[in-house]
């Protein structure tokens, strides 16, 4: 029986799983479909992470370096898994570049896809240049260029952040809460207020879900940075040619609102990875009815899927924070260690 393990996907969960396995002396092959490791925080150019406040390129960059410097981890970039056959302890993966990888087990750390705001056309993304996504604002901040109106490069005086774009919306078949956007938006609002103290930031929400310790971000954004929260689901975003105009109902005063803004930011949610149907077929694992990779249980073997020997971790399972993705990568690695150990004991007994 081979001892090597295949990790699919080089984001936070995959990097954590690879490192954990290698630390336990298990050789790892890490397959990444793009040409850089780091996953969404690096690909999408996130700025400061929640809750640490560390820059993504430093925090996740450190994880990438740890994996790249590890002789026990073999990284194959620009490749996907084309086929995956065999049984636990003896799998064979054929990659898109023709390579073949033998593996005792695999951990799918295939992550998510950002919601594409084009699918919510009433909110103006793609129609008006000053309607942007949280990812774009992250890039404005992380690039050091600062938050500016795309239409004319000016500093915005008034910014609206719309929550639940691509989340909790039956109209577009996305009923889940994307879990991180409230906290990310509260943090982003504070970053905007820090960079542009004259800029007023309004957050339009249905509910605020800054769960657990993240509540601090909600409180600080209001108490220290005077970010304003308005309970309203926006009906439509239009424009007068200069300002973008947000229409909705301010539910707390039972009044329609038509408010001009310099910029509107969509707090985009986390979709299942667009590749999940292919992954489900390739690895023969079940999908959750919302399209994420299905976790077999909550209390048994961590990260188990419907197929023995195939594990899953991170935002592939559902919307997830970076911290918890890392924890899940490590716990799935622990499940693999346990499986290999049991297999070795069994082999020795025979």
């Amino acid at each position, binding site marked *: 029986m081979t001892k090597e393990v295949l990790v699919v996907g080089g984001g936070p969960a995959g990097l954590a799983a690879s490192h954990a396995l290698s630390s336990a002396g298990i050789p790892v092959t890490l397959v990444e479909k793009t040409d850089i490791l780091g996953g969404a925080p690096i690909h999408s150019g996130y700025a400061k992470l929640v809750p640490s406040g560390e820059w993504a390129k430093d925090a996740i960059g450190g994880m990438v370096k740890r994996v790249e410097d590890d002789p026990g981890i073999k990284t194959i970039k620009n490749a996907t898994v084309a086929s995956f056959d065999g049984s636990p302890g003896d799998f064979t993966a054929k990659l898109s570049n023709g390579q073949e990888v033998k593996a005792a087990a695999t951990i799918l750390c295939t992550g998510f896809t950002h919601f594409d705001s084009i699918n919510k056309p009433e909110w103006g993304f793609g129609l008006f240049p000053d309607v942007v996504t949280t990812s774009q604002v992250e890039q404005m901040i992380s690039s050091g260029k600062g938050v500016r109106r795309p239409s004319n490069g000016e500093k915005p005086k*008034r910014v609206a952040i719309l929550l639940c774009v691509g989340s909790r919306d039956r109209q577009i078949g996305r009923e889940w809460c994307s879990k991180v956007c409230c906290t990310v938006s509260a943090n982003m609002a504070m970053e905007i207020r820090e960079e542009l103290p004259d800029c*007023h930031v*309004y957050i339009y929400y249905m509910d605020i879900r800054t769960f657990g310790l993240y509540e601090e971000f909600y*409180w600080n954004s*209001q*108490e220290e940075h*005077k970010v*304003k*929260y*308005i*309970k309203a689901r926006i009906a439509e975003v239009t424009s007068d040619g200069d300002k973008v105009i947000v229409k909705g109902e*301010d539910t*707390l*005063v*039972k*009044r*329609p*609102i*038509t*408010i*001009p803004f310099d910029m509107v930011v969509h707090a985009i949610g986390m979709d299942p990875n667009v590749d999940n149907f292919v992954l489900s077929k390739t690895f023969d694992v079940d999908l959750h009815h919302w399209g994420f990779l299905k976790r077999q249980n909550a209390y048994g073997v961590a990260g188990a899927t419907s197929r023995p020997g195939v594990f899953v971790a991170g935002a592939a399972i559902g919307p997830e924070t970076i911290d918890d993705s890392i924890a899940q990568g490590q716990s799935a690695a622990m499940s693999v260690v346990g499986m290999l150990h049991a297999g070795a004991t069994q082999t020795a007994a025979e």
Partner: protein
Amino acid sequence: MPIHEKSLIRPENLSTHDNLTIDGVDVSGDWSTFIKARVVQDYNEDLQDEIAALPGGENIHRCWQCGSCTNACTVNALNPDFNPRLWIYLIRMGFEAELVRDKDIIWQCVSCNKCTSACPRDVVPEGVMKATAHWLELKGYTPKTPSTEFDEIFSNQVIHTGKIEDGAVLLGFFRRTGQSPFQDWVIQMGKQLAMGLPIRMLMRMGLATLFHPRTRGWDRARAAIEEYVEEQEAAHRKALGLGGSSHDPHAPRQAQPIPQAAE
């Protein structure tokens, strides 16, 4: 024709013509009923800062609209229109016209501070109510309340002399609020006082009325207090974008037109 949810419609936004014919069709009365849209078209971003600049309003930005203040409110139990939660929201979002609509009930806060105890974010809603009532006065939306008049006469006298002369406070209060000094209860009090023949007290009162005694060495204290009060009042007026000074308490207050809600 019944209008559903009529309670949500303000009467001034209902438009009905008793006699109206359009294209030869008679649509008089209820047939021509229209409801004008009430749309908020902008936020007045200064309003929250104005209230926050007045004593008591400092923590208004902390509010997250849970409604604990309104639930705890003594006055709300008697008058459901008295809603601190709503007013805090209107101020935070800058819905000035909406706020001013309630100018005649905002001052009814009895300062029981049950809201202050109930508030999970330490907004101190009672302070906000006080600041808001003060704001309405400073902006000229409401006349000074009798209690404000009393406070001013009382504190002006203390600042001036370092002492309180009750008779002068009372007479000044009656004068400023347009009340007769010969009120039944005053006459009754005078009669009862006279029956006890408190000659020494009457003499002292008489002397005090004539000579306005001062606390010894009060001038420096007075100067310091006046300077502080002037500084505070100037800061408040500046924060509210008001010119001039409020130094003369007798200066007539200009009535301000109530801003109209955007239609």
